[in-house]
């Protein structure tokens, strides 16, 4: 909580001349652009996520089994990498415009595809990388809707189309809002994509104020405003999730049946589901492959191995640490039934919603304070600008992932097992390592893999908190892209995507499991 509180307290401090400048000239841009971005992205993700989820849940069409999990593939690509590949594809001398020129015999000054480096391009980038959040949450909600409800709707005069608009969508509204709020938070937190498209938002403003004006206080004041807005989104998300009254599951719940469609409708369903995967996953992969081929043997050079090693070491270490913390906290909650730990745990989960950039600003302030006041026996800065800051930020940001994995694992272990073990004189750490740990091995490794892939993708916090000259895959991709050296960016970008596929693998397994449950 301390990095977040430090940032919020900055609102009560003095406001510098830079603040006056920002307030007068650019703050409106930050607010308006952020609002346009969030509303545009929210609208598109609601349309893409809900329509694809509805089609996949209710209709039997060509490729349905693939689309069930294929629609979440874009989650493997962070928005900043999609932004880099989009510029590589759609810039006036980008791959697609070059292809269009050769096909349609266009002049060099003519472009078929419009300029993408603007707020509308950013809306497309966020929408096609983040819609899987809405897709996943809507699909689960649609799977849990009762068939009887739709059948009654049909007898009361609703056509199949109206069933979707007047019944299915309103009923999943809480889930839809929750998914959209996650997307809004991710959009507002992003730095890499908006920076690449030169869109002035809060995150680019915070970065510029800090690194351009060297004014950390004003950067923190801007960060506070963003944090308040994100907290608002978070509150709505939590409230929507709590609204269980929209659940239609009853004791004799009948899952929705999958309807066969005509071949024309089947093609239409295929196209609707394929387009988001094509734009959000296949197209960027093709462009990165194109860069890789142009890079020839230079793809796997020494620098790449060095940054890969840094990234893997850092992410795996952070993941193990984060997983152990989550394991100990969840064990304490279960073993001691401590109300204190129970009440603290939800606060530890808030970290996932705090943008990496804001977290970094707070951690820098906290570490500077520690170095100046408590660790001043060391020469220079001890923790500021060290690897500790990075690991600290990663743990705060990823704790929710590790915690949810452990919570789910513990729910499956009956309390009677603990009682039996305790009667057999197994208690405390003995109980944890002899009974719980072997049973929760899957949760342990799942948590490590999930946190690792999350850490690998994290850009803004790494960019700010990394020690001098220390690079990771994300930072390297950012640096190459900001220097317009897209071809060199291919290797780290590919590595990030490959690691990003790890959670997709787990989600795929979960989706398959849910389908099997639905059939029972």
């Amino acid at each position: 909580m301390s990095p977040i509180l430090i940032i919020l307290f900055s609102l009560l401090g003095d406001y510098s001349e830079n603040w006056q400048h920002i307030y007068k000239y650019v703050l409106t841009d930050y607010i308006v652009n952020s609002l346009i971005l969030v509303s545009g992205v929210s609208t598109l993700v609601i349309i893409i996520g809900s329509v694809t989820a509805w089609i996949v849940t209710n209709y039997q069409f060509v490729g349905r089994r693939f689309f069930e999990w294929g629609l979440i593939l874009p989650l493997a690509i962070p928005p900043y990498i999609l932004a880099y590949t989009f510029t590589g594809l759609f810039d006036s001398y980008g791959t697609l415009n070059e292809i269009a020129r050769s096909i349609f015999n266009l002049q060099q000054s003519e472009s078929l595809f419009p300029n993408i480096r603007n707020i509308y391009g950013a809306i497309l980038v966020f929408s096609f990388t983040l819609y899987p959040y809405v897709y996943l949450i809507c699909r689960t909600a649609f799977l849990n809707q009762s068939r009887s409800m739709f059948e009654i709707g049909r007898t009361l005069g609703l056509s199949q189309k109206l069933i979707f608009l007047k019944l299915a969508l309103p009923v999943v509204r809480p889930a839809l809002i929750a998914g959209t709020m996650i997307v809004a938070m991710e959009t507002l937190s992003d730095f890499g994509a908006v920076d690449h498209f030169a869109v002035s938002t809060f995150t680019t403003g915070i970065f510029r104020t800090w690194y351009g004006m060297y004014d950390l206080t004003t950067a923190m004041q801007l960060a506070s405003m963003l944090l308040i807005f994100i907290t608002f989104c978070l509150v709505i998300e939590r409230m929507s999730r709590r609204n269980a009254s929209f659940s239609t599951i009853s004791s004799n719940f009948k899952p929705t049946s999958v309807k066969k469609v005509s071949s024309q409708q089947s093609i239409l369903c295929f196209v609707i589901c394929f387009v988001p995967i094509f734009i959000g996953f296949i197209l960027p992969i093709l462009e990165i492959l194109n860069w890789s081929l142009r890079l020839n043997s230079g793809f796997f050079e020494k620098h790449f191995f060095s940054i890969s090693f840094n990234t893997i070491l850092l992410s795996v270490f952070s993941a193990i640490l984060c997983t152990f913390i989550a394991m100990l906290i969840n064990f304490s909650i279960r073993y001691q039934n401590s109300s204190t730990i129970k009440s603290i745990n939800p606060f530890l989960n808030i970290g996932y919603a705090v943008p990496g950039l804001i977290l970094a600003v707070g951690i820098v302030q906290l570490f500077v304070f520690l170095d100046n006041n408590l660790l001043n026996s060391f020469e220079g800065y001890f923790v500021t600008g060290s690897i500790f800051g990075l690991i600290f930020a990663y743990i705060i940001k990823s704790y929710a992932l590790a915690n949810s994995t452990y919570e789910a694992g513990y729910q499956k272990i009956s309390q009677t097992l603990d009682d039996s073990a305790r009667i057999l004189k197994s208690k405390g750490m003995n109980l944890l390592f002899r009974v719980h740990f072997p049973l929760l091995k899957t949760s342990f490794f799942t948590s490590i893999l999930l946190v690792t892939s999350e850490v690998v993708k994290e850009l803004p916090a790494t960019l700010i908190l990394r020690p001098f000259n220390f690079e990771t895959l994300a930072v390297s991709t950012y640096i190459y892209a900001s220097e317009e050296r897209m071809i060199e960016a291919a290797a780290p970008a590919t590595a990030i995507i490959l690691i990003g596929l790890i959670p997709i693998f787990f989600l795929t397994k979960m989706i398959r499991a849910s389908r099997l449950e639905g059939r029972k």
Partner: protein
Amino acid sequence: MKNILEIRHLSHSYGNEISIIKDFSFILKDGEIASIIGASGIGKTTLLRIIAGLEEPAEGEVRIKEELVSSKNFMLPPEKRNLGLVVEDRALFPHLNIKKNVMFGINNIEEKESLTRYYLELFKVLDLEEKFPHEISAGQQQRVAFARALITDPDILLLDEPFAALDKRLKSELHLETKKIFKEKGLSVILVTHDEEEAEYFSDKILVFQEDKIIVR
């Protein structure tokens, strides 16, 4: 009395499995109440779903008011059949309050309010109109489900074990009230039930589904 429902040589099966309905024919007259009884999985609900247009028959045809609504090559969509359906789990729309649930199927704006009020009163749920489905009891939910199905003035009311989830006291209370309403309104009803007593109480005709045949009593 006119024929309200005619089923001719109806057969149905799931996939390649043994057929669950074989060459079945049946006529329901206007204002009649017929019950379908039989063991679980024998095809009672399937027959109801075929009548409602929610499932396509493999063979045979279904006519409502002499008009063909289902055959192997033709299916009139459920929304165009003017039927009412009440199921065991009520399937009330969870995002709408009781009043909006009941008026859901009404398109005539002028009559909407008065009709809704009438049916809410008829099923004794007027005081619950502002509440949401999860805020009322199972018995009250079933009353709302009946009101929602009857408000559209359906040609046939299809009931799929509507009383199964209720306790004995509630069940007999609703039996009395609903039968009175059905008879007063001259409704044609098909009731699927496990309960033979319930079938006897309600029906002019009883269809007994057995493994290899359907007997009409």
